[in-house]
């Protein structure tokens, strides 16, 4: 899922300060799972903001709603007939949802309430780690299911580097070395000989480097 984390409330307060009628919109998918922008987080943020502004002597209207997703038009449409009641929206969706909301409601300022971090997994409640960088050309079949692009700090295709120490990355002793994981997995799969195959130079044109990306399914349009 897309993993995000809540922005510090001080930052949200600063961006929302010029407005008096605010709608806080959550998302029921990824940000709910990583406890950053679901229905509960919307309620907490709205209550906190109401109290803050009341304490400042300002009479602000702060409403709450949580949509199924903010990356599909049909869900964003659900709030169309109330949008004129607000002069700003705080979206707790990931950066994708914030932008799509803004594109859908061009005349209403849409402010982000979370920092979108990465594509990752729930290791355990409260801990999320990165797994995928969206490079557009998945090579997991040859690396035993472990991605060197997202799990090696240097995205080496023929790692590990000389800084790998006791299975951990040179930049942080709590960060597992991606290449150690790959080697361990290849060993378990009885495929350690694959290690000596030289991985070819990557085509990064399907990654961010190639420009903003698009997927089209001709057979479905």
């Amino acid at each position: 899922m897309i993993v995000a984390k809540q922005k510090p409330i001080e930052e949200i307060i600063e961006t929302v300060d010029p407005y008096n009628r605010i709608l806080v919109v959550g998302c029921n998918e990824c940000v709910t799972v990583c406890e950053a922008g679901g229905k509960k987080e919307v309620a907490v943020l709205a209550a906190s903001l109401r109290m803050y502004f009341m304490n400042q002597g300002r009479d602000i209207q702060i409403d709450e709603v949580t949509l199924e997703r903010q990356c599909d038009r049909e869900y964003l449409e659900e709030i169309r007939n109330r949008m004129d009641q607000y002069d700003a929206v705080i979206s707790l969706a990931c950066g994708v949802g914030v932008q799509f909301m803004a594109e859908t409601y061009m005349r209403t300022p849409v402010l982000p309430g979370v920092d979108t971090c990465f594509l990752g997994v729930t290791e355990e409640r409260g801990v999320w780690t990165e797994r995928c960088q969206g490079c557009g050309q998945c090579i997991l079949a040859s690396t035993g299911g472990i991605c060197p692009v997202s799990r090696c700090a240097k995205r080496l295709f023929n790692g590990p580097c000389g800084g790998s120490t006791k299975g951990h990355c040179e930049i942080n002793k709590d960060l597992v070395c991606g290449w150690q994981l790959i080697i361990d997995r290849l060993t378990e799969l009885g495929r350690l000989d694959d290690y000596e195959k030289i991985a070819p130079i990557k085509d990064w044109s399907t990654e961010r480097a190639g420009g903003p990306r698009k997927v089209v399914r001709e057979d479905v349009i």
Partner: protein
Amino acid sequence: MSLKTPSRLEKILASGQLAVTSECGPPRGSDPEAITRKAEMIRNHVDAINITDNQTSVTRLCSLAACIHLKLMGIEPTLQMVVRDRNRIALQSDILGAASFDIHNILCLSGDHQQFGDCPQGQNVFDIDSMQLIQTVRHMRDEGKFLGGDEITRPPQMFVGAAANPFADPFEIRVPRLAKKVAAGVEFIQTQCIYNLDKFELWMKQARDRGLHEKVYILAGVTPFKTVGMAKYMKNRVPGMDVPDEVVKRMAGVPKEKQPEEGLNICVETIQRLKECEGVRGFHIMAIEWEEKVPEIVERSGLYPRPRD
């Protein structure tokens, strides 16, 4: 073995003699005097001098420019090139830049992560990795073509090297990794500095068992300790470094004024022992901030005078 490049280092190694290389770190400023002074001190005691490339991600005068300064002094440089900071266009471009000054040695490296340096907030590149850089230089030299496929006018004639670290984890793949670099086309290797001789000799044995010592020239890396503090620092704070307790004890066992001398003794003894190690074809002396001792180390190890052209 017929020579592939005009590199003096290649020539000496191919002749069967032990080669000696050393390295200099460029200054954190634009005055080339820091490089030229150090290089002048050691020029008659080494066959080629490596210039580091923004080592530990600390921004310094670039390796290419420093190599050119050496070349203009009539000294043979080895261009260290990391893939951390440059994409494949810039890497190929800098290789041509070096070749335009007839620089004939290159060391292909990954590079320490930028977190260690003075710009931890910067981007990193890692467009291709060090293994692929080895392949790239060989391709440019032997096929005379760019990665994109076009012809290169006056292809670079570079003797291609890489680093190896017998002491990094996991140990079981360190020799397979060396084999991989050999398959990628590497021609000489400089190892991380050696203090754990048993482990190094084990690594060498495994390399010999696979015949790798006949496919690539391996130069053993050594660094003299100046103080017991330095020994401890390298033991505990430098990733991929193996400093056995006995070595630290040895440094700690002499009074402070005697420690530099003891450090040099350990270094010379290491070289003497490794001269007997089959497959070791030379030494890479990294005397960080102590370049003035390189001549002494070379002489005491019986490696002086260096072959003259």
